[in-house]
């Protein structure tokens, strides 16, 4: 989907055009639903988060320019934030629905393994992060895992996991700035 197409639709949505909203949904919903599902792990909650995302788009389509972000970055961020909010809010409520198999959604391969044209982040990960840490970063991003979960899965303490992550982020940032 072209950036210009997304931007044109967002401008029409800001004008209250319902047909534009429908076209926009058709173009973007599978991508954003995949993100919500990756974080939340079951369809009912992912659908709830997706609804919040599109309500925000309908009400705030005129504001995305203020953020100065690319439209897809803005959308992906909206979807992750809504899903992570939902995950936190319902952390104590057990999920009734059958969880989807997350491994089908978020392959635990390193960045770049599936996409030949690695972007700056993948390249930076390859340059400065050990594979374990790259995997941890991807799981934090795609599944919205907490330090507790990341640490448990890695068999280290929470403090160690955090220390590793922060060192990794620092190296990444330095590499990305080069």
């Amino acid at each position, binding site marked *: 989907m072209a950036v210009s197409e997304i931007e044109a639709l967002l401008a029409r949505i800001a004008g*209250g055009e*319902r047909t534009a*909203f*429908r076209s926009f*949904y058709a173009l973007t*919903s*599978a*991508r954003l*639903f*995949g*993100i919500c*599902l*990756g974080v939340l792990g079951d*369809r009912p909650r*992912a*659908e709830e988060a*997706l*609804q919040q995302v*599109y*309500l925000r788009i*309908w*009400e705030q389509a005129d504001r995305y320019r203020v*953020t*100065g*972000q690319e439209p*897809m*970055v803005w959308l*992906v*961020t909206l979807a*992750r*934030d809504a899903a*992570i909010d939902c995950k936190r809010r319902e952390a104590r409520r057990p999920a009734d629905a059958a969880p989807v198999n997350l491994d*089908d*959604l*978020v*392959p635990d391969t390193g*960045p770049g393994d*599936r996409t030949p044209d690695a*972007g*700056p*982040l993948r390249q930076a990960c390859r340059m400065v992060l050990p594979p374990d840490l790259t995997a941890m*970063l*991807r799981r*934090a*991003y*795609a599944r*919205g895992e*907490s*330090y507790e979960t990341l640490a448990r899965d890695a068999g280290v303490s929470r*403090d160690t996991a*955090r*220390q590793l*992550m*922060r*060192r990794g*982020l*620092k190296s*990444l*940032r330095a590499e*990305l700035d080069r």
Partner: protein
Amino acid sequence: MSVDHSDTLPGGDSELAGEYVLGLLEGVELHAFEAQLASDPALQAEVAAWAAHLSELAADILEVAPAPAVLRRIEIAAFGAAPPSFWRQLWPYVLGAAAAAALAWVATGVGLVPMSEPVRDAAPLTARLESDSGGVSLSAAFHPATAELVAEVTGGAPPPGRILFLWAVPEGGTPRLLGQMPDSGPFRRDLPLDLASEMPGAGLAVSAEAEGTVSPAAPLGPIVARGLFTQP
């Protein structure tokens, strides 16, 4: 910058911004970060930079189509939760009505609506519903004594394949579905007390809905006629 974070950890605000974007900050630390973020443009830029860089990872996440019912729920919530879009359609009329109230709009609907009901003390409120584009016109009357609302199509017909639905729009309130207009003859309904008390000054609107898609939350189809109740 002076975000308060644990001294035992290496690094500074850039790492905090990265952790924030990843959703790894929690509790007090999260709140402190957001408080600082609200007034710190450099930190906002750092968060935006991380969001852009990390969004590259979203390309790995598989696309999954949501169930078709999700869009319907979203549309009902969005279009119902956004009265401006509905009011945008009504607004020109409301303004025009105020100016025209002294002229054509006063009680001209009386007589167009069958008045078979015994009218006791209060005189009925009447409304003429018209469209800017000459679609459908109706006349309506509300009888305060009996709380009965009667409405009848006086001209025009719904667009092909569409069904007319009547909505009450209390002043400053959200539209409430009154019901489907019959194919012929008047629409009649005794309004619940809460709605009846809001009829003076309320608007009426008629939407043309595609079959099977009407939602009680808000009209989804175009508004084909609208009008305001006026006191005789």
